[in-house]
């Protein structure tokens, strides 16, 4: 599944899966004027970017991300609030 196959209302539930090399190539790069990619890892340690970053990308250098496979977004669990806290 790619971005264009996902209903707009469902976009927040999906993200684009990257290879490590792709994540490294995007980190800190502009996808839209004054907006920067922020590749992160999901619960399975997949490198991902959000559907918004894919949808809004207007940087000709990175239009290949429009064809990335989209997967459901499952975040890493949040850390304990404070060290030692359950």
């Amino acid at each position, binding site marked *: 599944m790619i971005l264009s196959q996902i209903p707009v209302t469902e976009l927040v539930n999906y993200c684009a899966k990257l290879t490590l090399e792709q994540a490294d190539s995007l980190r800190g790069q502009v996808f839209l004027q*004054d*907006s920067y990619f*922020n590749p992160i890892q999901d619960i399975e340690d997949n490198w991902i970017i959000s559907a918004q*970053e894919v949808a809004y990308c207007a940087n000709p250098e990175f239009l290949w991300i429009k064809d990335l496979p989209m997967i459901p977004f499952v*975040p890493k669990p949040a850390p304990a609030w404070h060290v030692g806290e359950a």
Partner: protein
Amino acid sequence: MSVRSARYNLLQLRRPKSNSMQIIELDGWAFCARASTTGQVGIRDFRQQKAVIALVRDMKNAGVYEKMKAVYPFVGGTATTHMFNLKDPRDANAAYRLSFLGGWTHSDNGALGNGTTSYADTFLIPANNLTAYSTHISIYIRNDTLFWKDMSSFNNNQPNNFNIGARFGTTNLFFTEHYDYLNNFVYNTNTDSRGYFLTSRTANNSMKLFKNATQFGSTVTSIATNFANLTGKMWIGRELGDSRYTNRQYAFSTIGDGLTDANVTALQSIVQRFQTSLGRQV
């Protein structure tokens, strides 16, 4: 429209004025003009220009403008116009210009995080850039969601925290950890994350938490000692080392010196008037 001609037109519309009034307007105008990376006027909408100029005027008249290190009006509807600091509208990290990372949606109503990857870096480090034991942070939120820390400076070294969160978890926690979470915190409850949230420290033994200028919880009088440890950059919408990213829409934010109760009350009125003039008040 060039910056020069637009500035001339604006000033012609607003004459005659005293010298001090013109200086105030020029501060507001400088922001409107420079909120751009193209050399063209950044904020072109006349209503938005008027709102920014009124914001500067009101903050100066209330004596709070000079207490600010960074003011983010989130006006203009794009990442470019939202990223500039009203107090120093240069496109530079040293001017505490925001850097937007991840999937934000920018509109005339502010900057909306996607809850997945979005946060903003102010590049302001409290220990280096603020006054010891006289500090505040504030943020205006337009949507009601559960989230975590709306603003946070953290250096991965507990318990040194400087943060504020409007509504978190099943207990609807409204909180600040203003220098540390062991002795200098307020944890209270709030069932609606919409509004203007602010924490202010006016001395090493006086810290408060406010929503819409109403104090929540008690004044914290424990003596804070660790200002020099606040070496993490202040982020909006995320904390360093955390996997949670904001899902909130921000429409105003400040960082600066500690604010008195009177300052907080005045700022609340000013910010709400500013939002109302833009048709985005909550």
